């Protein structure tokens, strides 16, 4: 199951559990860390070459994480801390390119992680790396023995590609030092203030404002000679508000903003307007009728279409899924075949920094395996051309194309960066609605559904589960053929199977819209973007969303004179 979401704040406990503990007191000089890594890596390489089985590839990755996180809720700060930590990952491939310890389900044997000294103490850093390397060798060599046995006794695999690709070594050192974040107190005040605006809206039961500022530096040294030092900095503000309809349906609105520095985030007036809009949306959603199961014409806004493509197509283009025999492999054997309407093309381009003035969250220059990011044309005029490749080869694609991504502590897999959907069958956005209404009439339906905002979604790609996807639309309207005003509905889930759904796209709008978010999968959380034009589908199928079991709160909020909208008599049963 993979999720694409801007919902960093979905669960505060989860969020807090993600905060790594640690702290720096050093002004890191990159070459000390890198030099220590390289020296120790070389020593390990020479020493372990004498072992049997011996590693044929090793890499050390170090992440300096300097982060601040502030969480406010109901007008009060509930968490505020800054974190400094230096994590070391030791990765190892034991055996040979053709078959090694990371084969199939044993992939996790390729990595161990530990905490490194915060100060640039060469001796202490080297010693921790040595310990981690020894542990990793023990794990990897044991795993390799098992891999050899199981490949010997099991039936041949369909895809006999090697377990690892060779890539050209490279050196790139970016010495940029992002200034440490200094606005903790100011942002505590700011998040408190934003959060307190929600108190004006009794329909909003709970809300969270999460601010994070991170300045990271990642180091990579490989036994092939690659040496990379890359700094990055990002601030993120996520505002989430929730309520519950009388029948128990959980309703949520999320807005997220990200920028390179805190002063590039929206100002007070804009944020206040967002909060007001979110609150108004929630009030409308509470009052909106529940959606009915429906199959018929639908229009997706550009943002909604972007999420849709990320889930439905993007995850299935990830290279490693094409050889994992537990995967559904929807597209594995469809290379050079039509998989989308011929007017659509899809690229994944991590090298793109911004689109139509919007910064793209999936930008990077080198991937986490030290391969330069590349623009990959995955689908050209409807025809499948390529996959998003890490250093795990698949049949017909023997090299990485710079999409090997991971969060520290996990093995990289092929992942999306900036997924961009373009169209040659476009009409002006304003005309798209007209075409939509024509289609509704043509199909003899009383209404079609317009998906204005999709929160995120998940997709099942494993064979053991139905090849289905589900996205979580939040703002969905019935658009009536007879000219009645659009009507907001709640509790809608789009359902369907990928190939079928994608081929129901009839025509698109002419403006690309961007959805920035964080995507979670096997190799962890990585920032991504997806961009697409608005789209008209001849048919989309929706189902009623599984709803919560609880009634709205029994008592009105404290300190608020007016009682909360009262629950209807029936008590929500377990669904």
């Amino acid at each position, binding site marked *: 199951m993979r999720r694409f979401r801007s919902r960093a704040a979905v669960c*505060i*406990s989860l969020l807090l559990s993600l905060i790594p*503990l*640690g*702290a*720096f*007191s050093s002004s890191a000089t990159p070459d000390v860390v890198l030099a220590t890594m390289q020296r*120790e890596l070389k*020593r*390990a390489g020479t*020493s*372990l070459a004498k*072992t049997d089985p011996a590693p044929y590839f090793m890499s050390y990755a170090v992440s300096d994480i300097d982060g601040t996180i502030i*969480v406010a*809720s*109901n*007008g*009060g*700060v*509930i*968490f*505020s*801390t800054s*974190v*400094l*930590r*230096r994590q070391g990952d030791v990765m190892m491939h034991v055996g040979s390119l053709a078959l090694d310890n990371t084969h199939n389900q044993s992939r996790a044997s390729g990595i161990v992680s530990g*905490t*490194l*000294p*915060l*100060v640039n*103490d*060469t*001796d*202490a*850093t*080297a*010693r*921790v790396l*040595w*310990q981690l390397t*020894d542990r990793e*060798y*023990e794990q990897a060599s044991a795993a390799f023995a098992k891999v050899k046995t199981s490949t010997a006794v099991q039936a041949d695999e369909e895809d006999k590609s090697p377990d690892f690709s060779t890539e050209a070594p490279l050196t790139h050192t970016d010495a940029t030092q992002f200034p440490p974040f200094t606005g903790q107190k100011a942002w505590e005040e700011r998040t*408190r203030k934003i959060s307190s605006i929600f*108190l004006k809206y009794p329909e909003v*039961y*709970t809300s969270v404002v999460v601010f994070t500022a991170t300045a990271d530096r990642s180091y990579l040294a490989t036994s092939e000679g690659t040496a990379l030092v890359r700094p990055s900095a990002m601030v993120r503000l996520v505002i989430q508000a929730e309520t519950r309809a009388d029948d128990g349906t959980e309703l949520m609105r999320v807005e997220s903003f990200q920028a390179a520095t805190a002063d590039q985030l929206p100002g007070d007036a804009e944020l206040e307007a967002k909060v007001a809009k979110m609150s108004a949306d929630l009030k409308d959603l509470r009052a909106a009728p529940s959606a009915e199961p429906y199959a018929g014409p639908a229009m997706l806004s550009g943002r909604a279409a972007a999420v849709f493509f990320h889930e439905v197509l993007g995850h299935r283009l990830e290279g490693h899924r094409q050889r994992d025999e537990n995967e559904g492999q929807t597209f594995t054997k469809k290379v050079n075949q039509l998989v989308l309407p011929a007017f659509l093309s899809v690229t994944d381009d991590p090298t793109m920094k911004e689109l139509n003035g919007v910064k793209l969250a999936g930008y990077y220059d080198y991937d986490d395996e030290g391969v330069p990011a590349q623009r990959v044309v995955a689908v050209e005029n409807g025809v499948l051309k390529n996959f998003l490749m890490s250093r795990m080869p698949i049949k017909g694609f023997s090299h990485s194309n710079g999409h090997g991504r991971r969060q520290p502590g996990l093995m990289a897999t092929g992942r999306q960066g900036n997924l961009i959907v373009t169209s040659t069958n476009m009409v002006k956005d304003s005309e798209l609605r007209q075409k939509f209404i024509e289609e509704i009439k043509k199909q003899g339906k009383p209404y079609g559904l317009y998906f204005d905002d999709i929160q995120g979604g998940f997709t099942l790609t494993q064979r053991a589960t139905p090849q289905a996807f589900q996205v979580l639309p939040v703002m969905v309207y019935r658009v009536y053929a007879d000219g009645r005003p659009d009507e907001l509905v709640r509790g809608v889930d789009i359902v369907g199977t990928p190939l079928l759904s994608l081929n129901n796209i009839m025509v698109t709008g002419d403006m690309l819209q961007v959805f920035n978010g964080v995507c979670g999968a096997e190799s962890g959380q990585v920032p991504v973007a997806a961009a697409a034009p608005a789209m008209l589908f001849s048919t989309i199928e929706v189902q009623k969303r599984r709803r919560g079991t*609880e*009634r709205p*709160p*029994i*008592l009105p*909020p*404290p*300190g608020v004179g007016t009682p909360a909208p009262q629950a209807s*008599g029936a*008590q929500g049963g377990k669904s």
Partner: protein
Amino acid sequence: MIATRRRKFPLRMILGLTLAAGLASEATAQEKAAQASTAVSAAVASDPILKAMREELDRSKAQLKMDKVAAPYYIEYRIGDVEEWTAEAAFGALRQDQKVHGRSARVVVRVGDYKQDSYYGPGMGVVEFAPLDNDPVAIRRELWLATDAAYKAASEALASKKALLSQFTADQPFDDFAKAAPLEYVGSLVKLEFSPEPWKESLEKATNLYRSNLKIQSVSGFLRFRAVNEYFVNTEGTSTRQGYAVYSMQISAETQSPDGMKVGRTPFFVENSANELPPPAKFLADAEKTLTTLQALADAPMVEEDYRGPVLFSNDSASDVLETLVGQNVLGIRPKPGESARTTGEYSSNYKGRVLPTFMSVVDDPTLQTFEGRRLVGSYEIDQEGVKASSVPVVTDGILVNYLLGRMPIRDFPESNGHGRAAPGQPPVPSLGNFIVKVKEPVSEDELKKKLIEMCKQEGKPYGYYVETMAGENPRLLYRIYVSDGHEELVRGAVFNELDTRTLRNNLVAAGNDPLVSNRAGSVPTTVICPSVLFDELEVKRTDRKNAKLPEYPAPALTPQ
């Protein structure tokens, strides 16, 4: 009452931990409860957090009610404010330096009645983050939603509990929830008091000793300084505020014997204040000693022969053994609904039976503040269920006479004795406070050693065993004391066979006059006070654990300093 106690503990005052208390007499508190708990003392009203909690609690008590579902009969709010600093160093370099401040709000709503209620599964409470600001609206909003969720969960929990119990015929002869006298107590707030730099330096210096002990594979040091302030209110009329601080420090070292056996040492220090912890020079000296004994342990001969005979435990190792075998078994933890045992522990059916030799008694006394001048971290005034702590004799002259109880009664024990304890955000469970092992006619450790030698002589054994420290259930520093000349030899790779409650009852033959105060930082701080003990017969044998591989290649060479 508290005022007199306060005078006894000048150290607390130095730390700003003064218990400036407004503990009402029980009579007044009960009167207050009779007035539907709306009237609170000025002390409660003057604390913004307690006040907000009280207001929201009163509102919930008066108004919270769903159609066709019983109103709660009991509601409690507990807010735990935790300020914590953790730091860690390895090989002379700091790896972690983290300050965290957080507040949890735990809400328990009970439906049903004291006899049978909803405190089961999802009905055991809801935990949320609480705002760090003392803003009453923000605090009350978190409590409001948590109360709502807890009430709904409680009604479902009661239904599932009743369904479960309908499968059993036996009627539970005790209440689900013990009544407790309401009380008010507003203690002083506690805060962390230390300056970080010397402590970080102390960790770095101690762990830097690896440079002069190169055969030791891993050296790290850790410290956690934690101040907890807890606010508690319930619908019985109890309102309390109290705080405690725990300062702990530890050094860990590991290495391997030439045959690959992993050996380690992790001595720790736990105190009520930073200035009671070992100062840098002492910490460094202790670390040096730790590394020296660890190296000696790595080089020590293996225990090859099985041994059955006398074994002497130092006060340090004995405190671990008695804490585990007696302490954990006197906790009055009720088994799952429908199960008939009195407790979940091994002393479930030993009430009024002998569990220790008749010369030993055990009391758990959280009201004791110091022992032979040393402060005890297991002391507290009121437990996390709002019940006043009391001194509880659990074993008297070898006979089990009581259990440590919270507000969940067990057979024959209908009331709490103030031992329902919990870390912030966690559900209270019966726990130790100051667990004290007392001995009639104790003897010195030297005499115990003589006795050990004497017994071995009689049995014709060349040596007896002396356990200095434990690692879980097995010895870490274990010595043979030779009968011939009394010399001691460190050995490794030994495990005990049948070191259990039965051995404690039947084979513990003497105890020392050297009670050790062992402060421990667990989920709640506890203290164990226990002397050396001598067993006339215990089995010591070779471990059957496989050795690990030695490192594939040597540690990196040090750069000259």
